[in-house]
Every structure is written in C-alpha cells, then in structure tokens.
C-alpha cells in the first residue's frame, strides 16, 4: 500500500465528512479511494482501491470481489487488504485476518460464518476498532461512512461511535457491568452521546427498552437479576441508544437457550428492518446466519472464501468448505437425515499458507490447490477456489433414515452408516490427514477411509468385552432445589445455590425434576431434550450418581443410587460414567492424557504397570486417538476440542461402564467436529453394548444417535417415544416449539 494509511485516511476522513457519497474515487490521493460508486469500476483504484484481488489474473471480474457486483450505492463500510495479527510476547505471531476486502451497504444485513479460530470475531473487532494488544491491524483500511477508521485517535473514535457503529457482544451474558443497574448503563451512554440526563434519559431508555420488548421496570434491575435473553435484549437496546448506522453482532445468541435464541434473532431482524441500520452478524451457526441475513460470507483461516446471497449459498455452495459446513446442519424431521463432518482441524495461522488453506482438509483437492486460490466471481457472488464452479457432494458421516414403508408408524427404522461415499469420482483421492492424527478420523471420506473404519470396529468389538446387560430404571424421580427468591427467570439453580445460614426462611423450592420415570435398556440410546432449565442436566447428574434424588428411585441391577452411601458410590460409577459438556474444563491442564486415563484405570479397574499401559493404548485407539503412544504423552492444551472430548470419552470408558451419560457432549465443539464425536458414541453403543443417555438441546444430533426420545419441560416428561416419530409428528406444543426454533437452512 502506498503511504501510511494513517495520514491518508485522516485526510480522507476530513474530506468525506458530511459529504456522504462524494468519495474521491479517482483523485490523486492513493489509499483514499472509496470503491467505485457502481459496478463498473473494475480496476479503477488499482491496488489501492477496493479491488485488491491477490490474483489479478482471475478470469472474469464483473464487479468487485469485495462486494456486490451490481452495487448501486455507496457502501456504508468497506475494508480493503485488511490484515490483523496477534503478536503475543514469547509466542509466534498469528496472522488472524489476511488481506480481507469487504463492503456493507446501508440497510443490509450480512452474515459472517466460520469455525472457531477462523478470524471472524477478530475481523468484527477490527472493523469496529475494538482490537486490543497484542492484536494489531498491520495493513489495509477500514472506511466507514467516508472516514478511515483505522487512523482515528481514541477521542475521535469515541465520538464517532455515536451515529456510527455499535457492537453487540457474544451472547450479552457478561456485557453488562454487574454492579450497575440497567438504568445506570443507559444513563452513561445517553449522557455521553446525547447529552440527555435525569428523567429525560430515563424516558429515552424506556422507549429503547420498548423496542426490544422489555418492560420499563427492567431499568431498576441489576444484570444478575435478568435472564440471559433479557440481558441480550438490554445490550441490543444499549447499542441502539447510539443510533448506529451499523451494528456488529458477535455471536449474538450463542449462550442462549434454543427458544430464546429464536426470539432474539427475530427481534434483531425486526429492528434492522424498522430502524434501517446495517448489520453484520458474526456466528458459527450457518443456519442462524442463512435464516436472517441477506448475504453471507464464509470465512476460513483468516480469509473470506465465499460470499453469496444467503439463499444461493444455502442452495448451492461453491466452496467445498461452505458445502461441508452446510452438511453439518440438517432438518431433524426429514425422512433421511445425514450429518457431515470435516476431518482435520483449521490450519495453524502462525504459519504462512501454502496455496489454498482448506486443501489439507478438502476431499476434492487437486495439484492446482497448491497455488493461492483466485477469487472468482460467479453469478452475484464470489468464491476463492480453484475448482469452482464444480458440483459438490459432501461425504456424510452419520445417517438416520425412516424406512418408506413404515414411515410414520411404529416401525421406524433407524440406522447409522459409515461415510456414504457419494462424492465426485474425480475427487477419489485418499486425501486428508491420516486417520487418527486428525479430529475426525472416522470421517475420512472416501474409499480410503472405509476399510479403516471397518478395521476399527472390529478391533473395538474384540477388545471391549460386553457387559452383562442390566437396565437403568428410574421411577418417579424428583429433585428439589432450595433457591433464594429472585426476580429474574433463573429457576432451577444449582443445589448449592442457597447461601448457608442466611435467608433460609425466605427461600423457596424449585422442582428441577418432577416425577420422571424411564428405563434405559442395555445397548439402547435414549435422548433427553428440552430447553435450558428443563431439568435435563439435573436428571443426567442423578442418573450418573452425582446427585441424589429428593424422592423416587434410580436402580441399576442391585444398586440403588438414592440409598447408597457416598463411599459406596464408586461401585456405581464403575458402571455408569459421565461425559461432560465442556472438554476444555473436563481435563486437568497439568496432567497428560495418559495420566488422566491411567488414573481412571487405576481407580476403577485397579490396573498397574504393563496391563495399565496396554489398556491405556487400547482405549486411545478405541476413541480414535492414534498413534496412541504419541497422544498419551500430550497435555490437554496441545489437543483440539474434538480430541479432548475423545480423551474425556476414553476416560469414561476406562471404568468399563454399562451406561454412558453424555451431557451435551458436542455443543461446545465446532460443527465440523460434532459428527466425529457423535459417530464415536454411536459406534461404541453398537459395538460394546454400552447404553447411552444423550442429553441435548440439539434435535438433529438426538435424531442421529438415539432411538428413543424424551422431551422435558419444567422437569416433567411431556412427550416420549421413538426418536423419529416424536420429531416427525410431535404431539405436544412444547416439542413443536422446539422444532420450530431450529433455523431453517433452505
């Protein structure tokens, strides 16, 4: 780039001030040129304009790769050649965003999707100048409303935030100052930007809260007195207080309950239409983005690899990565449900990419992929892939089918198969990383992977002896919690929620689980679904012997959890093991994988020395962490999320359990890794006869790995039956609500 973006940008900022559309496109000042005002500007600004295609030799350039080919108006925000690096002390420099060009028009809603670590949040922070050291913009410009944002000093930036860009942070759970009332938050913002105080400010705040469907009384509350959804609405209202032209939503609904997610997204979409701001929705959830945004950008390894209109992307993705991401979503009520996964993990961004960054995980890669991919314009979108446009068929990892003849009736068949190798013939290369070293070994698509998967199954069957079959039977199980009275909707808190000694008299009881009976037969998989607060985790913990029921019985053969003494519980835990939600918190960071699993083997099976070692390696192979010798010496931080979850599963298997209780085992993982873990659970059940209690809010995964489903609402089972028939013909309104809350990918 010519010149320092700072000075030039500042100059551009002053010039553009108040002038609106009069960007000096061809003026002598390099680096100031806003992209052309129409679609014919290919090459107008040279390498300093919006056209910063790294490969000028790209075949057809009908418009600018950075945006709409048929743009008719001045973009509200555009960035060109944006580079962001993290420069932590004593660690390699990570190149999180690499040469990104983009533009957002006034009033449009754009979605930005990608797996964790792809740079999407960093990009959002860079666009709004919220990056903190050690992150730094090293190249490129971000021009917002005619001003180069990267060059503004903090003082100007602050004033610019008003009527400029606002940010709604990840889920809003922690975006509010815990010691300040909601009123105080509004007062701070309104005083700073609108010079409104006192009663007038309160009136404005009430009005803003009205926009997000909250009552004025919320103003007198503290953040902890509000539910997650309410907090997120407050955050949105605060962002609106700035009267922004652009709102960046960074994972706006991630930590929210499924039903609340939907409501919040609806509110965002309505406000966007009413108020008319532009919106950038950053999310890992492709379904959510495609359901609400006009256009969608797919980001991978610091680059935007595909930009399309949402419907077009949903219908026919052009980049293999987008196609693979799409395959990780599905409609759990369909006849035939398939789930894809992407083997391997995203590249290390501290190493400069050699050619296409996705190639190592791509099932279609060809020698040409060793070169940097060009950004091609196809239709109204762009894609950075050598092979585009080519028909993409993504290999699937898991499948559940309703047999046509018996569909809808009682005889609902369900099966799960190995990767259905229906991919383009040409791509039949045994590409992809070797099995084991990657996150999704079982998913290695194509012919090369199939025998491998089969070999695995055989090995697993031989090595894990079948356990004598006994059902886990629950009868009228109730769990009550004493909670302090709260104004917000946070019912069903933890057992230790009440402060000891204080306020006993004023506490009330909540029935987190209210009279549940169920029987988990050997080798079967039962799903437990419901929104948060429905009591599903509490029920799972009781079944895993970690909490005692307030009344009712939980029996496994001769063992009765509710009457067992604490020191006898290890006998129960030998037969019922739990797989936790958070693989990052589930492993002690200072112990190696070998130690973590070895510890469990010592405790449960009393193994020592050689036998312990051989059993350890066998377990690592069972969960697909090969070569096992290498993995047993690793520390948790050296593993990816999916690999960690495999370690957690191996540790649970160390007890040779009859029952696995898996509480949201994949919800913290990237979508591309979920299929691998789900398939592992499914295979374990089939091969070893271990029964599975699968707790989730995600109906799609429940459809794929369970054969029986219980829908929980406020601690009660409101509906139960074979998974496919419950999902396909729900009878209870709550089940219908849960199904409707799933974002629809066209």
């Amino acid at each position, binding site marked *: 780039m010519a010149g320092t973006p700072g000075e030039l940008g500042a100059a551009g900022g002053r010039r553009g001030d108040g002038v609106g559309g009069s960007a000096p496109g061809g003026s002598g000042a390099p680096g100031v040129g806003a992209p052309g005002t129409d679609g014919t500007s290919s090459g107008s600004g040279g390498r300093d304009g919006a056209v910063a295609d790294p490969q000028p030799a790209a075949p057809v350039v009908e418009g600018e790769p950075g945006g709409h080919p048929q743009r008719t108006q001045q973009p509200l925000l555009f960035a060109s050649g944006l580079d962001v690096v993290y420069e932590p002390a004593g660690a390699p420099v990570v190149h999180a965003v690499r040469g990104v060009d983009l533009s957002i028009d006034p009033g449009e809603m754009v979605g930005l999707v990608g797996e964790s670590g792809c740079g999407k949040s960093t990009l959002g922070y860079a666009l*709004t100048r*919220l990056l*903190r*050291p050690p992150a730094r913009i090293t190249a490129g410009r971000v021009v917002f409303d005619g001003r180069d944002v990267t060059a503004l000093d*903090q003082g100007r*930036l*602050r*004033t*610019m*935030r*008003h009527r400029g860009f*606002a*940010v709604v*942070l*990840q889920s*809003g*759970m*922690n*975006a*509010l*100052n*815990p*010691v*300040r*009332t909601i009123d105080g938050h509004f007062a*701070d*913002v309104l005083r*700073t*930007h609108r010079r409104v105080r006192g009663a007038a400010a309160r009136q404005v705040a009430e009005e803003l809260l009205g926009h997000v469907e909250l009552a004025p009384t919320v103003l007198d509350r*503290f953040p*902890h007195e509000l539910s997650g959804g309410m907090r997120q609405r407050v*955050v949105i209202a*605060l*962002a609106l*207080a*700035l009267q922004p032209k652009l709102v960046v939503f960074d994972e706006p609904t991630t930590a929210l309950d499924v039903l609340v997610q939907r409501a919040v997204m609806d509110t965002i979409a309505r406000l966007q239409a009413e108020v008319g701001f532009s919106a950038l929705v950053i999310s890992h959830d492709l379904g959510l983005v495609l359901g609400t945004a006009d256009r969608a950008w797919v980001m991978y390894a610091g680059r935007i690899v595909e930009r399309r209109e949402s419907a077009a992307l949903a219908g026919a993705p052009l980049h293999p990565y987008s196609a693979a991401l799409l395959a990780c979503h599905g409609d759990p009520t369909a006849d035939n449900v398939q789930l894809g996964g992407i083997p391997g993990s995203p590249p290390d961004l501290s190493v400069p990419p050699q050619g296409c960054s996705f190639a190592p995980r791509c099932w279609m890669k060809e020698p040409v992929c060793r070169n940097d991919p060009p950004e091609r314009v196809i239709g109204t979108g762009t894609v950075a892939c050598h092979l585009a446009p080519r028909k993409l068929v993504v290999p699937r990892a898991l499948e559940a089918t309703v047999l046509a003849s018996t569909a809808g009736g009682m005889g609902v068949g369900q099966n799960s198969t190995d990767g259905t190798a229906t991919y383009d013939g040409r791509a039949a290369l045994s590409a992809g990383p070797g099995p084991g070293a990657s996150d999704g070994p079982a998913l290695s698509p194509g012919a090369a992977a199939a025998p491998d998967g089969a070999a695995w199954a055989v090995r697993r069957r031989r090595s894990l002896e079948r356990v004598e079959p006994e059902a886990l039977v629950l009868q009228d199980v109730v769990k009550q919690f004493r909670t*302090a009275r709260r104004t917000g909707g946070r019912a069903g808190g933890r057992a230790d929620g009440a*402060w000891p*000694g*204080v*306020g006993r008299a004023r506490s009330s009881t909540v029935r987190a689980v209210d009279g549940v009976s169920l029987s988990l037969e050997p080798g079967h998989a039962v799903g437990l679904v419901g929104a948060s607060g429905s009591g599903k985790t509490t029920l799972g913990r009781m079944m895993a012997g970690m909490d005692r029921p307030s009344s009712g019985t939980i029996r496994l053969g001769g063992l009765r959890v509710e009457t067992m003494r604490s020191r006898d519980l290890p006998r129960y835990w030998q037969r019922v093991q739990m797989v936790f939600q958070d693989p990052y918190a589930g492993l002690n960071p200072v112990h190696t994988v070998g130690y973590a699993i070895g510890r469990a083997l010592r405790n449960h099976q009393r193994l020592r020395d050689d036998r312990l070692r051989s059993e350890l390696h066998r377990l690592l192979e069972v969960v697909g962490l090969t070569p096992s010798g290498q993995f047993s010496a690793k520390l948790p931080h050296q593993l990816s999320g999916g690999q960690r979850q495999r370690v957690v599963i191996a540790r649970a298997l160390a007890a040779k359990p009859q029952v696995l209780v898996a509480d949201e085992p994949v919800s913290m993982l990237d979508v591309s890794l979920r299929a691998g873990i789900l398939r592992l659970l499914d295979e374990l059940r089939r091969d070893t006869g271990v029964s599975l209690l699968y707790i989730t809010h995600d109906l799609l995964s429940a459809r794929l790995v369970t054969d029986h489903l219980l829908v929980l609402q406020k601690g009660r089972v409101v509906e139960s039956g074979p998974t496919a028939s419950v999902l396909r013909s729900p009878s209870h309104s709550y089940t219908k609500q849960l199904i409707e809350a799933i974002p629809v990918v066209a």
Partner: protein
Amino acid sequence: MRYALRRLPVLVVTLWAAITLNFVLPRMMPGTPADAALGKIAGQGPVTASQRRAIEVMLGVPHGSLLSQYWQYLKAIAEGNFGISYTYFPEPVSKVIGAALPWTLALVGTSTVLAFTTGALLGVLAAWRRGSRLDSVATVGCTFMTAFPYFWTALLLLYALGFVLGWFPIRGGYSSSVSPGWDWTFAASALRHSVLPAFTILISGLGGWLLGMRNNMMGVLGEDYVTFAEANGLPARTVALRYAARNAVLPSATAFGMALGMVVGGSLLTEVVFGYPGIGYLLYNAVVNEDYPLMQALFLVITVSVLLANFVVDLLYGFLDPRVRR
C-alpha cells in the same frame, strides 16, 4: 438495611464465641498465674501458706464453680472491668488500654487506609496503562518492596532517617518536653513522631495493594462489559473507574477488611521498634511481664476489633456488590 439486620445475628454469635473462648482458653492452660509467681518465690526459699494466700488474693485467683466464674466474667466485661494491670499497677487494665488505643488507631488505622487507597489507585493506573513505564516501574518496585520484612524496613528507616540524618525522632509517640493535650505543640510533636512508623506501614502495605489491584484490574479489563462500554464510546475515565476499577476493587475490599481488623493487633513489631505507645507495644510489655489481666483484655480487644472490622466490610460489600445483597 435488611441486609445489615440479617448480618447482625452472625456478629452477635461470633462475638459471644470470641468472649467465651477468651474465658475458656486460659483456664485450660496448666497452672495459674499464682503458681507462676509462687514458683519464682520458691526459688528463693520455702513458701509459707500466708504468702501463697496473699499472692492469690492479689492476683485474684478465681474461686467458685466454673459457671459462676463465667457469669462473673461476663458481668465484668459488661462493666468494662478487666482487673488491675500488674505492669502498670495499680492502674486498671481498661484505663491502660484506653490510653494506648487512640495512638494505634490513629497511626496504624490512618496509614493502612492510606496504603490501601494509594496502592489501589496506582494499581488501577498501572493496569489501565499496561505495558507503560509506570506499569513496569510500579510492578517491579512493589515486588521488591513487599519482599522486605517490615520490621527490617522499620529498622532501616530508623537508622537512616532517625539516627544518621536525625530528621525524625527515634522513639516514642510524642516528645517528653511537651505534655499531652489538645494543642498545636503536642499535635506537631505527635505528628513528627508518627512519620517513621506510618511510613513503614505504608511501604510494607502499599506494594501488596498495588499488585493485587493491578492483577484484579487486568482480569476485569478482559471482561465483556469493559469492551462493551468501550464499544459504546464512553469516556476513558468512566470505563476505567466506573466499569473496570469498580469491579476490580471487590476482591481487594475483602482483603482490606482483614487488614483493618489487624490494625489493632497487627502493628506489634512496628510499635516495638519505634517504642510507640500503642496497643502493640502494650501487648509486648504484657507478655514480657506476664501481665495476665492485661493480656487477656488485649486479646479480647484485638479479637473484637477484627470481628467488627469484618462486619463493617461485610456491610460495605453488600453496598459494593449488588449480587450479594439479597
């Protein structure tokens, strides 16, 4: 207010427990003060029955059942009657303590509060300007300072500023040439005498507060609500103080409460080094002279002050953090 009322029973119970322990513990020790005194006399020759009787009466060896003794003890405490000090015979213990308490409260209390406020403020500043020169100087300097044992700092100051340079008096609470009273000469003298011990406490305390506050602040600065406040374009000062520091101070507030509780009893070494007429020095003398009534009363005073300080901080915490106010 309701929050405060709910905390009150806890305070009453702990107070009672402290008072009772103060009664029980000495009685569980083998021997009595009279035995100790008699043992000394026995070294010089045989003890007669009348000698024994005289000493027992003088020291007030308890008689009657344990329960009636306990009742007497509670009554005495309610009346503020802690007996007669041996060391300062025939002054009553309550008067001796009453004379020493203001000195300690003024010196140690003020310097502790001062150490906390300056330390915390500097900590906030260091964290807000992380990586700046101020930050590195403060962090390294404080690590260095807190590594010093504080009595050693006291001796060093005493030697350098008091003995060698002669800027400040070496010992005592006020000059022997002035008589205590509410006048300027006395106040000036007292102030001059308090500089060195106060400085010692300030130096030894400040570093810890600064480092603690800086670390809390660094954690809070990573919180979403700070980023969000910044994203909303709030002035830097508002973000730093009202959003970041306001939350970062919470863990420090608890520690500060503990420190306040230790004000009365925790300054022993400093006061001994400077011969300062406060509670610490008194305790030292009581121990050296086996002054049991004084010791017992001092223990009670120290315990009660710790409890009261914690109670006050509890109340303050309820004010500072709405999440515990329920």
